[in-house]
């Protein structure tokens, strides 16, 4: 395996996507035998930088040096030749579920090394795979199908494959986000073993306390730049890192006046879903109030939204809406109870891409336009759609335009628009500004405030602290499937939110 002296230097690497400079002249060095963390807020450029090293961002400018020699990494094959492996967050995308663990680990042998007729030497292949797993002390049956493994085990399989491919640098992109505490421990043990073998590990994570446990160095990124690199030396604290991550920023001021806080619309006591995706949640939301739910990816925000909306079936604990105990068993009941959901995966879950703006806007309230024998009154439907398009300033050439052809911000307005006439009392926004440009974000904020002014209660989730601070009257911070802390935006700041988001107590 690699000598400890091997190192990769990134020199003045920049990447430009249409309209955005994703990386700005980044300089950084990664060495074998070292665990280096890469952190930063969403969109800071961590994944972009790692994709450069993995050969998935071929359009970079600048230079990558391997032990001082300039190298080109323009495709995943280049990266592999240099011994760079990446374990993406979606491990499923690089494993073949219907094949066994051994076949997945030995995929190179199957694809490249089989010559002639290509008869698979099962015994040999499984023995080699078993050997690797044993070396890494991973306890997984190599004859098991990958589809039967847990997510944590799948990560192990990908790591095992990297070892077979003689990897010297292993990039782990937020590997712990979906793992339980125990699984995380197992992964960390493995990381330490790899380090001892002389592997260089680059570790991306949002969970700061984890990084302090496993990394020697922490590189902080913000807005496509590296803003600092610090050694984990016992002096460094989570707060230092948080300060570096956030920097200081100013934004347009949002006018939230003209709202009246009323009685409780939603109250949860020890709320959870049947499969414990979220658990022991105690929160309330009042009429006219905007409640921000902060938390990192994987903290359970989306799961909370969906379980409130009945998408996971019956729930545990007390779920009180407008003073009445409810327990929606499906989404239809949740809508009848007066809920509206703007889901996180807009294109997949929020809108019907192939349908017109008009039809998207009427999907929730179609019943109102169809009294006699279920026939839809198209004139009335169109009139309502035009009304909504005007109210929400949806930019579309006509109500008959396919929603898939609109911009992200306008698609999101359509998703909001379908609920406008549904008599919903509680609006749940799950990361509504994800993938939306800055200008459109402000418009979405204003729409949310308008809804609150008209007496609706609003739950708003986001993994961006600044957004939560701008918008919320009260903040709940989620971590590991439950609400960890309630904060007042008047007295807290993004540092404190991030502190609780990352598991601080």
């Amino acid at each position: 395996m690699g000598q400890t002296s091997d190192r990769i230097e990134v020199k003045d690497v920049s990447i430009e996507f249409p309209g955005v400079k994703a990386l700005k002249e980044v300089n950084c060095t990664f060495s074998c035998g070292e665990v280096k963390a890469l952190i930063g807020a969403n969109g800071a450029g961590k994944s972009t930088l790692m994709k450069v090293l993995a050969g998935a961002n071929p359009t970079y400018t600048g230079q990558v040096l391997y032990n001082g020699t300039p190298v080109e990494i323009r495709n995943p094959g280049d990266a592999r030749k240099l011994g760079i492996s990446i374990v993406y967050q979606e491990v499923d995308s690089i494993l073949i579920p219907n094949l066994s663990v051994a076949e997945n680990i030995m995929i190179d042998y199957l694809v490249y090394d089989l010559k002639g007729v290509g008869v698979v030497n099962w015994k040999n292949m499984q023995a080699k795979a078993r050997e690797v797993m044993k070396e890494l002390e991973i306890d997984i049956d190599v004859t098991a199908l990958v589809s039967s493994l847990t997510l944590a085990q799948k990560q192990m399989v990908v790591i095992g494959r990297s070892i077979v491919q003689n990897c010297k640098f292993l990039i782990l992109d937020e590997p712990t986000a979906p793992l339980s505490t125990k699984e995380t421990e197992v992964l960390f043990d493995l990381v330490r073993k790899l380090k001892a073998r002389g592997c260089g590990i680059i570790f991306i994570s949002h969970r700061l306390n984890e990084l302090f446990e496993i990394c020697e160095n922490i590189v902080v990124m913000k807005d496509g730049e590296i803003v600092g690199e610090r050694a984990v030396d016992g002096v460094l604290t989570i707060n230092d890192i948080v300060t570096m991550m956030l920097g200081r920023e100013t934004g347009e001021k949002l006018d939230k006046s003209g709202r009246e806080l009323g009685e409780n619309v939603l109250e949860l006591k020890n709320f959870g879903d049947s499969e414990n995706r979220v658990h022991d949640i105690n929160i309330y939301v009042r009429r006219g109030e905007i409640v921000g739910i902060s938390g990192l990816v994987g903290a359970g925000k989306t799961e909370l939204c969906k379980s409130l909306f009945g998408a996971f079936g019956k729930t545990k604990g007390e779920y009180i809406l407008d003073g009445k105990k409810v327990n929606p068993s499906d989404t239809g009941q949740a809508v009848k109870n007066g809920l509206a959901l703007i889901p996180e995966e807009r294109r997949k879950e929020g809108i019907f891409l192939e349908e017109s703006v008009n039809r998207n806007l009427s999907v929730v309230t179609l019943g109102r336009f169809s009294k006699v024998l279920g026939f839809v009154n198209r004139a009335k439907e169109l009139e309502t759609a035009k009304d909504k398009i005007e109210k929400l300033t949806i930019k579309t050439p006509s109500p008959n335009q396919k929603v898939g052809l609109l911009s992200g911000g306008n698609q999101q307005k359509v998703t909001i628009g379908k609920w406008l006439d549904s008599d919903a009392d509680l609006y749940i926004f799950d990361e509504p500004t994800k993938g939306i440009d800055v200008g459109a974000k402000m418009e979405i904020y204003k729409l949310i405030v308008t809804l609150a002014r008209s007496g609706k209660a609003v739950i708003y989730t986001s993994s961006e602290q600044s957004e939560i601070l701008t918008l919320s009257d009260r903040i709940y911070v989620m971590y590991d499937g439950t609400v960890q802390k309630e904060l007042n935006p008047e007295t807290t700041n993004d540092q404190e939110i991030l502190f609780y988001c990352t598991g601080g107590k």
Partner: protein
Amino acid sequence: MNNKEFSARKLLGQWGILIAIAIAFLIFSVAAPRAFLSVDNFITILRSISITSVIAMGATIGFAAGVFDLSFASLATMGAAFSVTFIAWFNMPMPIALLATIACCMLVGFLNSIVVVKFHVTAFLATLAMSFILDGFVLTYSGGSMINPKVDSASGMKVVREVPTAFWNLGKSPYIIIIMFICVIVVELFLSYTKHGRILYMVGSSPQAAKLSGVNTGRYIMLAFFATAIFSAIGGTLIASRAGTVQATAGSSFLMPSIAAANIGFSLGGRGKANALGTFAGAALVGIVENGLYAMAFPYYSINIVKGIILMVALIMSGLSQKSQD
């Protein structure tokens, strides 16, 4: 791409079936004026596509909801067997026998939907299994031989009532053609103009988005299976009344033509999804070509080649029209 090219492609993509029908019509009118170009022959064409059209209406509703129900043809066989034997063997008056046939088919549709919705089996596979069960069931029911309502069956059932003329009339023109048109119109109105049809399309287009808009997607998938079952029952009844007897494979010969008709019709008017008028046009195109080729004394055993080519060209056309919209 310039505008002219764009609109030509769009025209072909959206109205290609109607153009193809017109061209086929012209060619056969010129090539075989005597045999093809007559009122009698048009009625023959309509009659020949009626059963396919009716059965394909069920498949159309299934496709609209994103459900590939493969059992509809076997269900039609069962419908055919039940409709005639409920009268002949079980002494039911005709209206009751027909309603009972529809009810039995709907029960099968219900079972299909349970397997798909509750047990999360892919519709295609669940209904493949169901079609085997149904084929075997009909054979068992008939005692392994053809059902002839005029003689006692191999399974030991006695003929206790004569099948009325009204039943046999269902399979003759004009009744069979009228029934076809009614079915097409009902499904067109249902899918395009009613709330439930609209939501069926939504479920077919994105089940998650439908669910998170408050739609009970399971219930709509069940509705699609029910609709398919009803049209299979009606189609089956027409098969029995037209043929007079029921073969154990009576319905299965309509499986591929129905699927083809529905898919040829996807692109009609740029709708881009299964729809009743499109399916009817698809069935008509295949029917006209088949009839015209017979009129030109084209060897009957080669006609499937032409049918296959029509389907393939139609699919390529709709693929092109989709592309031109991107």
